[in-house]
């Protein structure tokens, strides 16, 4: 029994199939990263694993139980999901946002407990947001804001965390910051992290397990070193490239070659 897996999973918007009959097991306690071209269905797959999209066939199983049979709150105690950020709620402070992460643990008539407050404080500390806690979310920079959203998800205190392109709109240094933070969480608490990333090189560096999505299914998966080579990239992204070893981390580093610019060099 895997911590999170899909069984014969098919997903569709209207009648267009996005994912067709997919069996995929997520390794427990590791960082899994989905890669794939635009419109390949990787985000759709992630959404269905977060119970936000019902399968047309098959199922997503959380520790052996069909995720669509569980109550919303039960799922929210085991699995957290951060969608691609879009709305910035009006007039909410960082602390208030993080407190929302405790929702699945509260009854409708309960205010936040001292246990909730303790977890919120800890999360604010872990994410380096203590000093910004009483600032308005809308007054923060993009990097700080994304950190606040992540802190909310961490306050949910779940074994599994799903993130949909958490580094979009961030500059390179904030991208690395955020991924370092996730890496630390994974190593410290053995949390299972699953995310969609666009940056292939960062994906190879941070992933224990990489999943390349193509043609309504998984094209290849495994350790980045074993999976990523020129042919796979050509197939998945329709891109000519050279793969070298990252001089610092030893992970695969993709150098896209394209066509026009290359002909000038040679």
């Amino acid at each position, binding site marked *: 029994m895997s911590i999170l897996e899909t069984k014969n999973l098919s997903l569709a918007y209207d009648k267009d199939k996005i994912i067709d009959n997919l069996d995929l097991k997520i390794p427990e306690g590791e960082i899994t990263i989905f890669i794939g071209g635009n419109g390949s269905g990787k985000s759709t797959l992630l959404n269905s694993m*977060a*119970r*936000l999209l019902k399968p047309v066939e098959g199922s997503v199983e959380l520790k052996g139980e069909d995720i669509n049979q569980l109550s*919303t*709150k*039960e*799922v*929210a*105690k085991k699995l*957290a*999901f*951060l*969608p691609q950020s*879009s*709305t910035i*709620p*009006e*007039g*909410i*402070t960082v602390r*208030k*946002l993080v407190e*929302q*992460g405790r*929702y*699945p643990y*509260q009854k*409708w*008539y309960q205010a936040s407990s001292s246990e909730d407050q303790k977890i919120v404080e800890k999360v604010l500390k872990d994410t380096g947001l203590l000093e910004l806690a*009483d600032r308005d979310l809308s007054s923060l920079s993009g990097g700080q804001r994304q950190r606040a959203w992540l802190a*909310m998800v961490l306050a*949910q205190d779940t074994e599994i965390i799903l993130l949909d392109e958490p580094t979009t709109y961030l500059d390179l240094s904030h991208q690395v910051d955020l991924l370092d933070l996730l890496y630390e969480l994974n190593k410290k608490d053995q949390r299972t992290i699953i995310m969609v990333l666009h940056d292939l090189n960062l994906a190879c560096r941070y992933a224990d397990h990489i999943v390349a999505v193509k043609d309504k299914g998984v094209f290849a998966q495994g350790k980045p070193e074993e999976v990523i080579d020129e042919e796979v990239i050509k197939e998945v992204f329709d891109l000519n490239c050279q793969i070298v070893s990252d001089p610092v981390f030893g992970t695969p580093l993709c150098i896209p070659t394209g066509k026009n610019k290359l002909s000038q060099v040679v």
Partner: protein
Amino acid sequence: MLKNLKISRELILIFGLILLAGLIFILSLSFGSSYISPVTVISHFLGLEAGSYNFTINILRLPRTLMAFLVGAALSVSGLILQANIKNPLASPDIIGITGGASAGAITYLSFFSADYGIGGLPFAAILGAAVVSALIYFLAWQKGVSSIRLVLIGIGIAAAVDALVTMIIVFSPISTTVQSYVWLTGSIYGTNWEDLFQFLPWVIIFIPLAFAFYKSLNLLALGDKVAAALGLNIQLNRFLLMTISVALAGSAVAYAGGVAFIGLIAPHIARKMGGKSYSILIIYSVLSGGMIFMAADLLARTAFLPLDLPAGVFVSGIGAPFFIYLLYRNRNQF
């Protein structure tokens, strides 16, 4: 430390609002075709006036003033919930046709059924009208979920259609009720007595606390549907229940005060401007500001052109319409 300061800031604001509402309340009881000084009003309530103002205050002005406050509060909370539910600051029960639906229900009942079945069925007719219109708007705006801008546009269209329907019903109704119907449509609480007040009271006593019970859902919805769902909120169920509360509040308010416009738009905005961060506070601010506005509007309406007693709705619209245009202007880049 900082947190405690914040809480007391909110408490001070609420206390200030209550004081202001109390002031308008006393003034409402003072002014009218005969003037009773505020001091006399207060000593009347303390039992020091030997009942010389029993008729003017207790029978004429008190039920009407209390009704004004409750109607304003109900419409305001209805608007607050509606705006949160469909995530659009332009939403308000009157603009998207819910008030119109309630009016159509109420006018139909008044014209054709009240003679046989009495006045007690009026709120149900109004709420039924409001519910039918909201269901219709939802149905027409539905396209794999509800997009808020679609919903507002369709609502504005339906509001116009329902207004036409109301006019038609009035044309076909007995001549004797025509003028009354028109006054009622603008929003008037002229001649409210204790019986009216006690009939309306249960709706407010049930549905405003019920709205309050949903403050966490409202807080989550403000974060976006996906985030709210991922945090464990049953979106469709909560949407439906919130809509029901909103319709019940607007519908019952219309039943007793007529088609009052714009309170559901302005009062929640004032509440937001006061800096409420959680819906628990926003609901309280909305109750107080909405109640106060309609109380003040009714006071002005019945005293400004003495001896004429104008419908309070006219005064609310007088402030509300320019405010709506301002909102459209401020949000012009969002659509």
